[in-house]
């Protein structure tokens, strides 16, 4: 999970990236160079920093409490013109299947926050989990599985190939869950957006893992 935030005139980001905080910070700064950017290690630090010094812009998943916190959705990141992507539930033990997953321990990158993670999982997998392990980075998921800290992991499908460059652990796919949105850009209520700041080329967007940015609210 990469989090970047600023106290003012800034952009805060909360999503599960494969890069480090510093790399994302640099990539984002290259794209939004007039904004101050700071990195945070986890969703809880992101939430805390937002309460103390809300950023002008936030890049977050659809589970971000935009309305409650005084933001409006401005634009939606996409890959190949799609707003949504797949997440896969993987295990190394074939005993786990869609009918018994609620009895197991699940590991995932926390990009929705501790308090929302149970309803989030229930929404996308249709079941309640009692035992959940949250991590801050996708690359910690496979070691959790190998060392049997969890019975299964929820991982963005597009990341699997990259992570398998490092970990050769054979896995079984339990299911592909209900689609999850890519992050959106949210802007503080009543703040006027300079649209030019967010007009990014495909090449620029590819550097942060996307191919297009669809404006949803022309302010």
């Amino acid at each position, binding site marked *: 999970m990469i989090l970047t935030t600023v106290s003012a005139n800034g952009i805060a980001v909360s999503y599960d990236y494969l890069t*480090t905080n510093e*790399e994302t910070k640099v990539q984002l700064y290259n794209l939004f160079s007039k904004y101050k950017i700071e990195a945070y*290690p*986890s969703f*809880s*630090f992101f*939430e*805390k920093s937002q309460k103390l010094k809300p950023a002008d812009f936030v890049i977050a998943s659809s589970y971000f409490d935009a309305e409650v916190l005084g933001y409006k959705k401005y634009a939606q990141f996409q890959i190949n013109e799609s707003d949504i992507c797949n997440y896969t539930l993987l295990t*190394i033990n074939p005993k786990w299947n869609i009918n018994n997953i609620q009895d197991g321990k699940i590991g995932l990158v926390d990009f929705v926050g*501790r308090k929302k993670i149970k309803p989030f999982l229930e929404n996308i997998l249709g079941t309640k989990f*009692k*035992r959940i*392990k*949250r*991590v*801050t*980075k996708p690359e*910690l998921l496979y*070691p*959790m599985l*190998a*060392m049997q*800290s969890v019975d299964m992991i929820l991982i963005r499908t597009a990341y699997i190939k990259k992570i398998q*460059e*490092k*970990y*050769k*652990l*054979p896995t079984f796919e339990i299911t592909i869950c209900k689609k999850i949105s890519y992050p959106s850009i949210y802007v503080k209520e009543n703040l006027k957006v300079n649209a030019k700041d967010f007009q990014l080329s495909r090449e620029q967007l590819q550097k942060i893992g996307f191919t297009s940015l669809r404006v949803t609210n022309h302010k």
Partner: protein
Amino acid sequence: MNWVKVILLSFILSNLWSNAVGEDVLIIRSSSKDFKEISSGIDAEINEDYTVVDYPINPSTTYREVEKKITKVKPKVLVVLDKSSIQFAKIYTENHPLTNLPIVAMGLGLKNSLAKYPHFCGVTYEVPGYHIITGFRYISKKPIKSILVFFRKKHVKMLKKVKEQMKLEGIRLIGVHVEKEGATHSNVTNFINNNFINELKKHRTDAVWVLPDEMMLSKETFEKTWIPASKIGIPFVSGIRKFSSKKLNFCSYSCAPNNSGISHQMSQFIFAILEDEETPKNLGFEEVLEVGQTLNLSKMNLIRKKVLNNNLKKIEVIR
């Protein structure tokens, strides 16, 4: 002056209340930098929802002082971060057999040392072999298919697990038992000094995993055998960062626990106890999940082993 009485009464009542109810989490830890960092990390993760008291101890702190602190703070969860704190917590549970205080610990060898203490759960501080071996494979240009490890009887259980993990990863873990000729210090010393190089040449593995063991890595064996062996041409890898320092110049690659990662892992135990009604017995002990990596590039160059430069992004490289 009724408002004075009201304020005084509120003050007294709130103190009485907090004395009755207690704080949520008490962290007892050594005063050193790493433990301070881990404690601060835990505090930052949980202080939005729970109160935390941080209690650093030093070598002169007595059990009575620690017991007094626990009695005063009345935590719902006790966190202990180093050997001394864990020892005090063990004595506390022995002296208070009716206590149901859950204790989250971080330290070495916890699965064995705390096996008979049902109040404890937590994170074992040893760097898992899985991280060390897969991490090195990822940066090594030469494919890593086999690893040699010298071990003692006490390592058997752990190595069995790692061997299975490595099997899934397509890597053979080959062990050499250094207590074949006896388990005393001098038996082990002699075995290592007389057989190490031959074993290396016999097995011809792609790397050697060095276990942090004082008897195997003693002053009688380290300079005489381990250091010269590390120059032969097979990379040595370990879970001790200083082994790949420029000063020691022993291992080519090492991993070490990451403090913020440990804080995050420990916090999850605390949340599980406070919010999910989990017990220490159910939670058990976990291995360190997040590690930092160090590559001694000059050592790799010395033994003429190449690395994959594209895979060095998250690694501390010593040139």
